[in-house]
């Protein structure tokens, strides 16, 4: 087998996996802290794609054309507004159900996900939307290859990998080394005790939703720029894939989410590339089932110990 093809599939998988990882973080953090799956997370990602396009258009109409300024500005604004959505979802759909039956917030999650989808469909239209290509260019190895024997990564793809790594690092640092992170970990370990010791757990839970949404916004921003088009339905498939990634990595574990994403991305790429793309998803979900059966705690998750 040609080594460049293998290398290229690694790049494909890594890029795809990084976006899965960024979204998986939202699932894993929320699960870690309140033990529920936020099924509306995929829609939050979808909304961030629309926000990216809106802010991109805004910057162009205002007349700002410096690429770094535009990219950074759009990213920050998208994260901000998407975080607002994440916060509102928690406030409206989950907080009132905090002390009810375990199933109630799950149903409410599905409900809010349908509401968000249809809200976007009605307000933005059902057609495909797109953004013009930005930041075109490509690294090739070897750089002066004339035939098709090269491994390449576009500027945007490398941006995806770098930004994913950097934002994961920042997030891990926040959780491990700040007062906020300590409060998060305390809430995760024992919500009642944390509350007794003066941690405002409701606010901490809100913060976790905000952080998860902000990470989804990073993914939405990068994916939108890279693939150029989106519609109101993209959150569904992406949500399922990211959830799979979160479970693979060990739900509740931050580095696990990223690792799970990359593993899933690579697995999909290799299977589509070397076996058959028809059964790519079958393979990915079989992987999920195998993990759920034989190692439910994933790569990096800690096996659940009954709390006494």
């Amino acid at each position, binding site marked *: 087998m*040609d080594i460049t*093809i293998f290398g*290229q*599939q690694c790049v*494909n*998988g890594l*890029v*795809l996996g990084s976006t899965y990882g960024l979204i998986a973080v939202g699932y894993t953090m929320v699960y870690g802290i309140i033990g529920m799956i936020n099924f509306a997370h995929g829609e939050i990602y979808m909304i961030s794609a629309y926000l990216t396009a809106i802010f991109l258009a805004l910057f162009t109409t205002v007349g700002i054309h410096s690429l770094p300024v535009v990219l950074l500005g759009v990213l920050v604004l998208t994260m901000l507004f998407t975080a607002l959505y994440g916060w509102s979802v928690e406030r409206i759909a989950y907080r009132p159900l905090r002390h009810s039956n375990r199933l109630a917030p799950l149903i409410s999650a599905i409900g809010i996900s349908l509401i968000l989808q249809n809200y976007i*469909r009605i307000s933005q*239209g*059902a*057609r*495909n*939307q*797109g*953004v*013009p*290509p930005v930041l075109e260019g*490509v690294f090739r190895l070897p750089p002066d290859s004339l035939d*098709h024997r*090269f491994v*390449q990564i*576009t500027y945007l793809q490398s941006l995806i990998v770098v930004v994913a790594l950097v934002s994961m690092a920042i997030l891990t640092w926040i959780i491990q080394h700040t007062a906020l992170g300590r409060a998060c970990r305390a809430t995760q370990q024992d919500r009642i005790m944390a509350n007794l010791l003066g941690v405002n757990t409701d606010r901490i839970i809100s913060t976790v939703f905000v952080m998860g949404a902000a990470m989804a916004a990073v993914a939405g921003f990068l*994916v939108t720029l890279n*693939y*150029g*088009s*989106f*519609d109101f*339905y*993209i959150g*569904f*498939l992406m949500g399922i894939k990211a959830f799979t990634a979160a479970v693979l990595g060990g739900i509740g574990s931050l580095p696990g989410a990223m690792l799970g994403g990359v593993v899933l991305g690579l697995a*999909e*790429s*290799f299977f*589509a*590339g*070397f076996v*058959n*793309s*028809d059964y*790519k*998803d079958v393979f990915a979900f079989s992987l999920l089932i195998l993990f759920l059966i034989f190692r439910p705690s994933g790569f990096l998750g800690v096996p659940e110990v009954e709390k006494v």
Partner: protein
Amino acid sequence: MQSAKRLLPVLAMGMMLLFACQPSGAAEPIRIGVAGPFTGSDASFGEQFWRGAEQAATDLNAAGGVLGRPIQLIKADDACEPKQASAVASRLVDRDKVVAVAGHFCSSTTMTASTTYADAGVLMITPGSTNPQITERQLPTLFRMCGRDDQQGVVGADFVVKKLKATHVAVLHDKTTYGQGLADAMKTRLHSLGQTEVLYEGLTRGEKDFNALVTKLKSIQADAVYFGGYHSEAGPLVRQMREQGMTAPLVSGDGIFSEVLVVSAGGPGFLKGVYMTFGADPRKIATGKALVERFRQNGYEPEGYTLYSYATIQTIAAAIQATQSQEGEKLAQWLHGHPVETVMGPKAWDAKGDLQVSDYVMYQWDDKGKYQEVE
């Protein structure tokens, strides 16, 4: 006093019933269902359907309607989902009591919905479903306004082999009834031309990342890619081909025949070397000139299936007018034996409900986001 109060709601109900009955005194409209994907990723085709049908109904009503009665269109959204199509079909038949249906668009939805209409004896004319199986089942009240994928696939394969002189052809599809059917038709023709495809695989609808597949296409050195599917996947696919340095042409069918392909690809620059089959451009047929002008004056470009949808409503109206009937079987019988003058010229159907003449030609995209017929 007490009993008078109790009577009040009853009285109000009675009044409401009275009002509800009133319109039936006037000429009752003839209801025609317009079914297609008005939401979802294929909504741009649904828009073409609706624009065409709406204009046709307006024009017909302005000319006095059919049998002296106005035409009323009922919009039914199937979102290109077979399950939803079956549900809206039942609704059109049972609740709205439509005389005929113009629709559906996606072949998968036409397949499921058509049995409902056939059971109820409702005339169904699909402006845009091209899968061969649809008419092969010989449902007596089913017709189409467009060609078939086994005709479309032949034009596609001939073009790839004879014009593009490709020898390593990869055939891809999106696993839908339409997409896979078209890819299969193309593959069959390819075999009869003495070639074997280098790859035959499906991709997942709704995904955006086909990079792994594109790398594979590169590794097997495909010099032409045939794709059976819709623009929402064709756009990202061709973009990623170009991004990975593949210049091989992408050939597809009527599923990408929409300017929304530019949006799906995220820019017109990626579309160089994209080809697609479609009927001879109906906008260029002399009979439709005035209508096309009217659409454009309203700020709408009647591309794709817009005029097909217009012609469908015309056909339904013509059949009702000629037979003085609203029974599906009678309308169908008449259509099997009589050609109809439509905005797209005269149309006639064979025993299966297929058009007697199909006119697929190849179109080519340029890097400005426009397409035109290949000479």
